[in-house]
């Protein structure tokens, strides 16, 4: 096996990077892939709690780098998918405890026997971000249809191009189709036109994402969630499958069923 190393980044914080990493990893594991997630946010770790693995941490990535444990010992096995692992960030250190070459070395070791390595980048464009993109074969930029998130995403895309990391793919997260219809939210087309990069997925705003995070069970495991379906589709695209983009105008639940029955949709 030679894993594909994917870094998820955004520039702005709070747009859903960690949520995207946890969901894509779960979706890939559901498809039978061996996945290793790395939390790149040293000092502000969160991927562990979103994945529901916070009680299992013994060693972290800085322990690996500083030789206090073997790489395998810092890989926490998931509760549901035995082929999915998390390498947590150190909580009491700063970003300078890791260098870009450390990340390249760790990822090269992980490439040997996994299918995907997914790195959760910290917000910003400084050291932690540089570490997170150092080993990437492919970068996913997450944004929200909102002015500050799109502006920061554009900065990140510019840096990735300057660093010759190739053109990243875009995830538009938390799109509210009712607001778009009312022309009170940038549409996916607007965001794509502004950023000028290729789209890999649109994730609708969905309350079940928060419910999933609360439980430490990412929303892809909820078969009824629209956001979950969007993340499962992105995971398929990462595996090279051609999956059509979902119809955002379709409503789920009872209201959607009523609208479909009465021919309003």
């Amino acid at each position, binding site marked *: 096996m030679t894993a594909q190393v994917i870094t998820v980044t955004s520039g702005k914080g709070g747009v859903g990077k960690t949520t995207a990493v946890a969901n894509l990893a779960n979706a890939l594991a559901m498809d039978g892939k061996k996945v290793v997630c790395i939390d790149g946010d040293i000092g502000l770790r969160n991927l562990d709690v979103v994945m529901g693995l916070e009680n299992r941490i013994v060693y972290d990535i800085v322990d690996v780098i500083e030789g206090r444990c073997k790489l395998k010992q810092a890989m926490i096995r998931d509760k549901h998918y035995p082929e999915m692992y998390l390498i947590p960030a150190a909580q009491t250190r700063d970003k300078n405890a890791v260098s870009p070459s450390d990340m390249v070395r760790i990822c090269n070791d992980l490439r040997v026997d996994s299918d995907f390595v997914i790195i959760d980048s910290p917000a910003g464009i400084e050291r932690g971000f540089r570490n997170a993109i150092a080993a990437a074969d492919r970068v996913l930029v997450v944004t929200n249809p*909102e*002015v500050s998130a*799109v*502006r920061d995403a*554009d*900065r990140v*895309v*510019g840096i990735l*191009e300057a660093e010759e990391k190739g*053109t990243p793919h875009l995830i538009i997260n938390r799109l509210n189709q009712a*607001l*778009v219809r*009312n*022309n*009170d*939210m*940038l*549409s996916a087309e*607007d965001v794509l036109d*502004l*950023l*000028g*990069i290729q789209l890999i997925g649109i994730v609708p705003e969905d309350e079940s994402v928060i419910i999933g995070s609360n439980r430490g069970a990412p929303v892809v495991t909820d078969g009824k969630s629209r956001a979950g379906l969007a993340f499962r589709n992105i995971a398929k695209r990462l595996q090279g499958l051609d999956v059509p983009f979902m119809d955002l105008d379709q409503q789920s639940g009872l209201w959607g069923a009523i609208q479909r029955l009465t021919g309003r949709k």
Partner: protein
Amino acid sequence: MNFFTRKKSATSAKERLQLVLVHDRTDLTPAQLESLKDDLLKAISNYIEIDPDAVQIGLERDGRSQRLVADIPLRSASRHRAG
């Protein structure tokens, strides 16, 4: 601007972002762009007569690349001589 003629917010978001991204990408402030225009017109005026009021110079986006687009109408030399 009253309630009925007010632009929908997504339209202003897009227009504002279009401007801001062009300046972010080129690392050129609107003030710097203005002084670039002035210098450019001065340089051209050393060789040919132009109509400064009809000049249009601006940054445009084309996918992820930017270009400086200038439309600089020239004063007709023959008319000038005749006058």
